[in-house]
């Protein structure tokens, strides 16, 4: 049974690709067979975050157009045995993706026995974003605790509830999860940033993860190593927790409170 998960947000720059890469790695590190697909046609980026940009020969659109086989286009990850990347095309043709084409590729991935297919959605609500979510069983909605991101996410929730195959078929709904990124417990404590509960209340969603703001995210993308693979980082721990929750485990939220600073730390700063 293959589960299709879309990673979406509406707003750009909130961490969709970082999240797609890390969740894909997290699932694969637990032995799941995972394919992660970049739906951002024209603006390929997942390959860079995954560190496989120099190994892209064929892409998603090549597969859809029958210019290569799916096997030829799937890039096997060098770190995790069961992880594969399907890169976005750099074409400027907006109509390169078709619903039939996407469905065909997803069906082929199903037939190949993948456990999870992650669809990394482009920003916006155009065709790429629409097709990334259309066939999804579940959705990870990536949100920054910031007004425009929250509002755009709510818009995306409206689309998930109406413009997906599950919703159109009337057979149920896409299971939605909230993933907060760039969370700063210090700023939340100071009343400068909305907290988990605030965003949860506004959007009415289950929280699958809270990823703390960290310099580790940029370092990871600089290196082309998904941040979840940096075992030293709280960001990695937070993503691993999110993966556990996706797999149905109950894990308490971490990194949502400012760490208590000891007397000396407070005295000397740092």
């Amino acid at each position: 049974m293959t589960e299709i998960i879309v990673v979406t947000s509406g707003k750009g720059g909130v961490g969709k690709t970082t999240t797609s890469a890390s969740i894909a790695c997290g699932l694969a590190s637990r032995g799941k067979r995972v394919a992660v697909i970049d739906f951002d046609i024209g603006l390929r980026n997942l390959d860079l975050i995954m560190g496989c940009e120099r190994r892209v020969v064929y892409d998603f659109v090549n597969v859809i157009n029958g210019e290569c086989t799916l096997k030829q286009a799937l890039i096997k990850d060098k770190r995790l045995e069961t992880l594969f990347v399907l890169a976005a095309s750099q074409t400027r043709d907006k109509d390169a993706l078709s619903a039939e084409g996407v469905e065909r590729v997803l069906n082929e991935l199903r037939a190949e026995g993948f456990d999870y297919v992650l669809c990394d959605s482009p920003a916006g609500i155009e065709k790429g974003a629409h097709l990334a979510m259309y066939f999804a069983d579940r959705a990870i909605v990536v949100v920054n605790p910031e007004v425009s991101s929250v509002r755009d996410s709510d818009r995306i929730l409206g689309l998930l509830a109406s413009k997906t195959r599950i919703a159109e078929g009337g057979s149920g709904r896409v299971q939605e999860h909230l993933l907060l990124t760039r969370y700063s417990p210090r700023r939340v404590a100071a009343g400068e940033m909305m907290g988990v509960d605030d965003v949860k209340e506004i959007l009415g969603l289950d929280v699958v993860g809270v990823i703390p703001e960290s310099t580790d995210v940029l370092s990871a993308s600089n290196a082309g190593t998904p941040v979840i693979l940096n075992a030293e980082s709280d960001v990695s721990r937070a993503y691993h927790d999110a993966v556990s929750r996706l797999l149905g485990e109950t894990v308490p939220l971490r990194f949502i409170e400012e760490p208590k600073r000891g007397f000396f730390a407070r005295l000397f700063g740092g």
Partner: protein
Amino acid sequence: MGLLDIFRRQPPSAQVAKERLRIIVAQERGARGGPDYLPLLRRELLEVIRKYVNVDPEAVVINLERDQGQEVLELTVALPDKIQGAKNATAAGAKP
């Protein structure tokens, strides 16, 4: 910063954000779910009605209610009272 400002603190910005979002999200959710043609339908109805009565753009309210598989399209037009209406009609007539 004056001493009194301590007591006149603004609410924390996160709280302001939450309040603003609560309102706009509720409003946008209310408009959602209906068929895409609703806004256009509203505009065209308004144009037709305006041929006969000069109503305010806000006077036409369209509601779509779903009840156990049955959909009811409810249309409310608040007609202006006569004198006001005549006034508005002249005012509107003066415009190109």
